[in-house]
């Protein structure tokens, strides 16, 4: 009861802070700007926050962080909108939303897809906020159970999951993952300081930027191939109606939302690709659950939108836990938040909760408000966002490319990054022509270096004893799960069924 009272006292302090007119306005402006930029294809939360960060420098710290949180949610929701309507992921975690969301739009159910994405995000957001408020401190302890050995095993599991999840040819998926791993090797080796595959170019000594790869293979390549094959591109901007979900849709989506929320909340706390892994994991689970889903996954199943959307939002929410309780950003977006907090003289970490409770709880309350604003303000505004996508391609596409370039440039203020992005755009076009999926490449690119780092770190810490991965129970469990996945997928019956599942893309 005591803990409950403390929680209520904290939350009421938070809402008292967030519910000032000024902060509500900043929260709304943040959501609006975030959606505006996030809805542009190829521009995800990272680029959006990076682009809008300077706009918050002049604000008081609480207002600035509240606005940034708003931008973050707006950008995420904007990303889902684009994924559903244009089949372009605004961010890596909406890659999964695209699979079924776009198919729903093709079948004239864009409204339902957008609603369920918003609703799922809101429910997951509420739940995530509560978790954040109630369990921030104890949950951060969970991260300590994970040493380098556990992280390595988790990533093995993640990569094998990606292979199983990949649609189309298994060989191509493995090929793309390996290519991603190789690309991830470019840069200075953390352990020895030796530059790898940098060809004497100083910009490459820090590796290829994630944003360049993501924007290149998704944003640029998509846009350019669509100019090429104009009639194949369908943008469902006229068919957005029926925002109200039918009872049948709701009944189907609700359990998926709850499952996605649960998975997302758990995976979001872990450093690394929290929201992304959460979305992938949720999609895999939805796909495995229930026989004969109608329509099948990959063809516009509502659960395929509801689950991952809830999971990535819950993950986004709980990824604030390591940041706010330990000052450890679990992903790139949170790293940007650290930068923003430091600019305002706040050192993220456990002391924020005690020395600046108004800020800490105000931010938590504003997360919930931000999520609410997305539903009650942004959903009705969907028409406006759609108008943005209705702009003729000859204007929209160059504008998008320009925004992408600005986004890429703004991360490091370096034109070299823009060149690399263009290069990956060309590569992305080649992949599309060859029918190779880019999502596994991206996952390999992110997880590869982390996996190598943790493998070598675990070996360094065990002074060269490889059994460390089997003697630590958590690590062993994850490796066994990975093994089980390989066994399952190589069973003849399953692999045949898998091919059937992905036959219609």
């Amino acid at each position: 009861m005591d803990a409950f009272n403390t929680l209520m006292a904290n939350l009421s302090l938070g809402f008292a802070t967030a519910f000032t007119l000024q902060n509500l306005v900043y929260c709304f402006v943040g959501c609006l700007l975030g959606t505006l930029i996030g809805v542009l294809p190829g521009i995800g939360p990272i680029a959006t926050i990076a682009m809008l960060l300077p706009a918050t420098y002049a604000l008081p710290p609480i207002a600035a962080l509240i606005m940034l949180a708003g931008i973050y949610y707006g950008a995420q929701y904007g990303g889902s909108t684009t994924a559903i309507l244009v089949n372009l992921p605004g961010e890596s975690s909406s890659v999964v939303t695209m699979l079924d969301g776009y198919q729903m739009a093709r079948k004239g159910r864009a409204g339902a897809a957008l609603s369920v994405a918003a609703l799922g995000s809101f429910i997951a957001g509420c739940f995530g906020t509560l978790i954040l408020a109630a369990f921030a401190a104890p949950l951060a302890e969970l991260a300590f159970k994970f040493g380098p050995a556990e992280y390595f095993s988790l990533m093995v599991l993640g990569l094998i999951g990606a292979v199983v999840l990949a649609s189309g040819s298994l060989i191509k998926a493995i090929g793309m993952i390996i290519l991603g791993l190789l690309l991830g090797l470019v840069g200075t080796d953390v352990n020895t300081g030796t530059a790898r595959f940098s060809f004497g170019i100083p910009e490459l000594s820090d590796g290829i930027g994630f944003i360049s790869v993501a924007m290149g293979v998704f944003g640029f390549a998509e846009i350019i191939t669509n100019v090429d094959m104009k009639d194949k591109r369908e943008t469902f901007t006229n068919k957005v109606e029926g925002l109200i979900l039918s009872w049948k849709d709701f009944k189907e989506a609700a359990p998926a939302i709850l499952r996605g929320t649960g998975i997302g909340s758990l995976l979001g706390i872990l450093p690394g690709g929290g929201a992304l892994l959460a979305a992938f994991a949720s999609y895999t689970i939805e796909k495995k659950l229930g026989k004969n889903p109608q329509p099948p996954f990959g063809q516009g199943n509502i659960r395929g939108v509801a689950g991952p959307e809830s999971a990535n939002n819950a993950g986004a929410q709980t990824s604030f836990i390591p940041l706010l309780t330990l000052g450890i950003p679990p992903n790139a977006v949170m790293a940007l938040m650290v930068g923003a907090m430091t600019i305002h003289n706040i050192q993220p970490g456990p002391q924020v909760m005690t020395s600046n409770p108004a800020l800490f709880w105000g931010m938590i309350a504003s997360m919930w408000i931000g999520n609410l604003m997305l539903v009650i303000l942004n959903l009705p505004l969907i028409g406006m966002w759609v108008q943005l996508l209705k702009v003729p391609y000859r204007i929209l596409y160059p504008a998008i490319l320009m925004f992408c370039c600005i986004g890429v440039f703004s991360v490091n203020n370096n034109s070299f990054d823009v060149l690399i992005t263009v290069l990956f755009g060309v590569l992305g076009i080649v992949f599309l022509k060859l029918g190779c999926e880019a999502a596994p490449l991206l996952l390999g690119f992110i997880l590869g270096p982390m996996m190598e780092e943790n493998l070598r770190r675990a070996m360094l810490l065990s002074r060269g004893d490889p059994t460390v991965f089997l003697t630590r129970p958590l690590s062993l469990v994850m490796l066994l799960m990975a093994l089980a996945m390989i066994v399952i997928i190589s069973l003849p019956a399953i692999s045949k069924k898998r091919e059937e599942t992905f036959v219609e893309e």
Partner: protein
Amino acid sequence: MKPMKPWKALVGAILGAVSLCAQAQYPNKPIRMVVTFPTGGAPDILARIFSEKTTLGQAVVVDNKPGAGGNIGAEIVAKAPGDGYTIVMATVGTHSINGALYSKMPYDMVKDFTPIGLIASTPNLLVVNNNLPVKTVPELITYMKANPNKLSFGSPGIGSSIHVSGELFKSTTGTQMTHVPYKGRQFALPDLLGGSIQLMFDNMPSALPLVKEGKLRALGQTGAKRSPSAPDVPTIAEQGLPGFEATAWFALFAPAGTPKEVVARLQGEMQRIYKLPDVQDRLKTLGLDPVLGTAEELAKYQAAEIAKWAKVVKDSGARAD
């Protein structure tokens, strides 16, 4: 004194007038201050304070050019004209450690630059996991000698001040421990708190709160004197290792050949800005100790730092390129 030939005197007079004119005008366009690290870190904040408080009459534009341990940004300034319109917020890395670490430096840390002044320095804090049965530096040394190479220390990468502090500790005390590099100090912290690694020479501002919360134990600070931010923590030098010093510092440099008057102008502005009471308060919350030395002091300090780190880096065998 021989009388000057009339034409020489004339040329001299014209040149003098031109340079006087130029001096009077400096700065007559915005000054670009290159920060060799991303937004948000200590060098970035110091640069933004300068930009915010300047009264030079021209904007000071902060330009973040991170990468290659700061070498990318420092190289830009090394190759810029020495006119005072491009200056760099240098760090212990870009202007001393990197010289020993990188076999092919894209610039000469001394010859390519004109020192302006040292702004601030911050010691690192030797913190250990709470389960490690030591409370002081001598106890740690005894423990390490009894358990050779049992401990591991983390760092945000090869050649960081956090890494070389550990290497300096090893070579000064003749002990052994394994260096475990991470991609950033924030990634090393969970392993330190969880006990996978046992110690780290972390940056003072980020480590202090964790010490105050009781999550980590502080054994000593690496500065020559106790930092005003942590007056209760003894220095490592005080604990039987006289002369032990490993600090991260931040200084302003202009390209080589920058006129004396311009350097003096920038040095004066630096002194004025970082002595403002509100700026001093901000530095204190960031755990930065203001030094505010002259250009000559910076040149001397830099030479000493280069010599010290060259030896430590060489002994440790660390390399980056």
